[in-house]
């Protein structure tokens, strides 16, 4: 009985809990401005989805915001993963009081909230206020803890004998790290990449303080569009923007979902 009921319940739940909000997005994004003033679940009388998408693409200058997001996300993820796993490797392999203290400091950022106001002051003093470099630095500072935590735990499960073989062949630490350790870290780095991409790609809070108004990213831009749009009752444009902004991540995820789910589940609970 439960076996036959379970798929029905699962599908119903998907339809109501996920389907309804997503339908609201698509239906509203397909309406004319007049119809979208009071957003509801009725389908548009005539579909204007394509025009609306094109209008926000041009008016809200999505290509520029997309570029801004990419300029920040790509270097952030690369830097945080490389220097984070370098540190994590050494922290996992050396067990002294010094490394224990450094490890505790290194992962403290998982719990402690970043000082978002004073970082602005600091960036000004460093001449990095409002720059892409400053933004990348702030994100790296915030997410290094996550990388150090996950990777250190993972390195401890890798037998050191694998490194020794390379060492006997004469490889120095850099070569051992690059040729032996980094490839072994691939599963945990894949998980960390997804998590950090998600956080940075979607972040609006830290971006406000650091680069708000000087560089556009997709979430900052959405916030502007929506702040103006709510005032003007332009719900159709807000949701057209939401579709354009969410689609890249959702498509990437749908294509890679099996690997990603396996990576997250193996990384998080161990």
């Amino acid at each position, binding site marked *: 009985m439960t076996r036959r009921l379970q798929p029905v319940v699962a599908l119903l739940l998907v339809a109501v809990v996920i389907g309804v*909000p*997503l339908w*609201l997005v698509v239906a509203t994004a397909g309406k004319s401005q007049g119809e979208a003033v009071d957003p509801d679940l009725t389908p548009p009388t005539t579909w204007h989805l394509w025009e609306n998408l094109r209008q926000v693409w041009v008016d809200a200058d999505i290509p520029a915001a997309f570029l801004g997001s990419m300029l920040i996300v790509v270097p952030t993820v690369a830097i945080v993963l490389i220097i984070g796993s370098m540190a994590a490797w050494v922290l996992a392999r050396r067990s002294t009081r010094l490394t224990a203290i450094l490890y505790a400091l290194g992962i403290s950022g998982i719990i402690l909230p970043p000082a978002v106001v*004073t970082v602005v002051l*600091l960036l000004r003093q460093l001449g990095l206020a409002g720059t892409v470099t400053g933004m990348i630095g702030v994100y*790296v500072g915030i997410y290094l803890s996550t990388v150090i935590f996950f990777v250190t735990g993972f390195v401890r499960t890798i037998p050191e004998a694998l490194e020794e073989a390379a060492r006997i062949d004469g490889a120095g*630490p850099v070569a051992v790290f690059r040729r032996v350790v980094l490839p072994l870290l691939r599963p945990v780095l894949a998980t960390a990449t997804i998590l950090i991409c998600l956080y940075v790609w979607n972040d609006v809070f830290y971006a406000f303080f650091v680069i708000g108004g000087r560089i556009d990213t997709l979430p900052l831009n959405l916030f502007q569009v929506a702040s103006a749009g709510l005032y003007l009752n332009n719900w159709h444009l807000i949701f057209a923007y939401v579709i354009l902004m969410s689609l890249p991540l959702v498509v990437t995820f749908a294509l890679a979902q099996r690997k990603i*789910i396996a990576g997250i589940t193996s990384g998080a609970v161990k």
Partner: protein
Amino acid sequence: MTILSAGAPGSIVRRTHPLWFLVPAYVLLLVFFFLPTVFNFVYAFTDWSGFKAAINPVGFDNFVQLTSDGTLFRSLRITIVYAVLVAVFQNLFGFGLAVLLERDTLVNRIARVFFLIPVLMSALAVGYIFQALLKGTEWLADTTWTIVVVALIHAWKWMGLSMLIYLAGLKTIPLEVTEAAHIDGASQWRTFWSVRVPFLAPAVTFNVATALLGSMNGFDIVQATTGGGPARTTEILNIFIYRTFGQGLFAQATTMSLVLFLLVAVMAFPVIYVLRKREEIL
């Protein structure tokens, strides 16, 4: 090579895992994480603002002012209520979904992907969706219950991630254990609660801790659905920080940022300790 002619004990480790590998990470951590945190403790006691160039120490003035007009404790209370509600809802939903979608059938695999879509979407977008969905109802206009609605929305966005982690936990339960319970004559219900659920303790720790601490740092969802209203009853600390910073009251924003830091530090360690202890008992 000289690897085999090592001198003092431990020198191999020193040479093969050199400390300079730590330098780039810790320099960036120092500059972009620890220094601003130290600044938090300094500038909370000044009159730093957008209206004048000089910054002067003022002692506890900011704290006194925030305490006396009630803002400090109201924001603190709202933040804690919000975080606890999110942690409860998100875990109930995530746990329920994981149990419902546990078997690897086609329908379940597809359903899981759908529940992950909100996780991938920006929190800001999620906030606008629910603002539109609830527009014209009482749901976002009630001074008592709106905080609960906003917490439900937050839990809706992240329940897919909790579900994944509970699913991973369910997968680690050895089959022999449930079979043994079955042979001993335990009912399905009993097997579930007394045998399988205890195995989920590490997943509970992870999920509760991340939901609690993550929502104390919340901003986007509340900003997009209510902007802190009605009558500032959903103004969690980060909304206050954002608003006062925007008004140029930098010192007040810093003071609240320090309060948030202390709140999280004070709450995090007992929470993680208690949950870890519970893992041992079960």
